């Protein structure tokens, strides 16, 4: 595989970031690593720098999608051929990156989404299960392809795709999930899945607590509706 950048968006991840970076370096020695510090108020940035990786410091918190898009912009300007997005909270096992790369070569795809449900068993709450089920069905209805884990942020994207997503409003600030799969399908990009290993988040604030799941589902439905209504994306 040609030049590859691993983008790790991180917001207040001082507890995990050093461990994540060690694991990423160990399992992917050939790839460059970029931590996008999304306005953290803790030592996320300093700890990342100490690990000798590239760090982008966004002056204030702009959201997960905005941080990932900043990484896409960097990769586009620096001429990378591929990017891998991997969360900074130690949910994604960096050793699974190889699965994504192999799947991209095998399927000749533009995007490979890492699915936690295709590999080892993964436990999650009922509300999340229902959410994933609904969005999987919507993705299948629209694309005709089964996506078992459309909300996964563990992805491998080629240059054509990430340079498209890096510009303007092509990537949402908060929830880049099934709506992005639909947008990419609409633009005739080939999106497929590959098994990855994930562990459920134990510490920190989850986006799946309190009223957030309801807000998330409502906004995702709105995003899906907009994809359907917009002629150009």
């Amino acid at each position, binding site marked *: 595989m040609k030049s590859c950048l691993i983008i790790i968006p991180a917001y207040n991840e001082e507890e995990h970031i050093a461990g994540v970076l060690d694991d990423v370096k160990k399992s992917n020695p050939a790839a460059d690593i970029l931590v*996008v510090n999304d*306005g953290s108020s803790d030592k996320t940035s300093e700890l990342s720098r100490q690990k000798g990786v590239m760090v982008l410091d*966004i*002056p204030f918190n*702009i959201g997960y999608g905005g941080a990932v898009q*900043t990484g896409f912009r960097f990769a586009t*300007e620096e001429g990378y051929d591929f990017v891998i997005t991997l969360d900074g909270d130690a949910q994604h096992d960096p050793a699974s990156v190889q699965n994504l790369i192999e799947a991209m070569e095998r399927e000749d795809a533009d995007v490979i989404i890492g699915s936690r449900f295709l590999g080892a068993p993964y436990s999650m709450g009922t509300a999340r299960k229902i959410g994933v089920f609904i969005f999987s069905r919507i993705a299948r209805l629209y694309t005709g392809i089964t996506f078992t884990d459309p909300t996964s942020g563990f992805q491998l994207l080629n240059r054509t795709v990430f340079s498209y997503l890096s510009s303007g409003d092509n990537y949402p600030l908060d929830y880049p999930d099934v709506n992005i799969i639909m947008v990419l399908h609409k633009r005739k990009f080939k999106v497929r899945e590959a098994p990855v290993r994930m562990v459920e988040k134990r510490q920190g604030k989850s986006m799946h607590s309190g009223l957030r799941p309801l807000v998330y589902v409502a906004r995702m439905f709105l995003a899906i509706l907009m994809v359907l209504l917009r002629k150009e994306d």
Partner: protein
Amino acid sequence: MSLGMRLVIFILGTSLFLTILELVRKKNFREELSLVWLLIGFGMILASIADLVIDPLAFSLGIGYPPALVFLIIFFFLVLVVLYFSVVVSDLKGRNKELSQKIALMEYRLNTLRKKD
């Protein structure tokens, strides 16, 4: 409506209108955003004689209590104003994102150049 009441509403409307004009003149309020508030101020000035139109209109619409129509109109305009400012905030959020991303990228390049020197 009594003449005194008309006068009070007229003075309040005119004060609001002039305050906004002054804010714009001093460049404390952007012209393009102030337009909505100038319209509201102008509307308040007109409100001092609005009963001449509102009362017959309310009765023709079958509204027995004309002030209800006034509240309805005010509510509608305020919703429009809130919508307008929500659009402005949304636009600002997008620009904010662009700027913060550019700052992060430029800062990285600046630090890289410094290290090279």
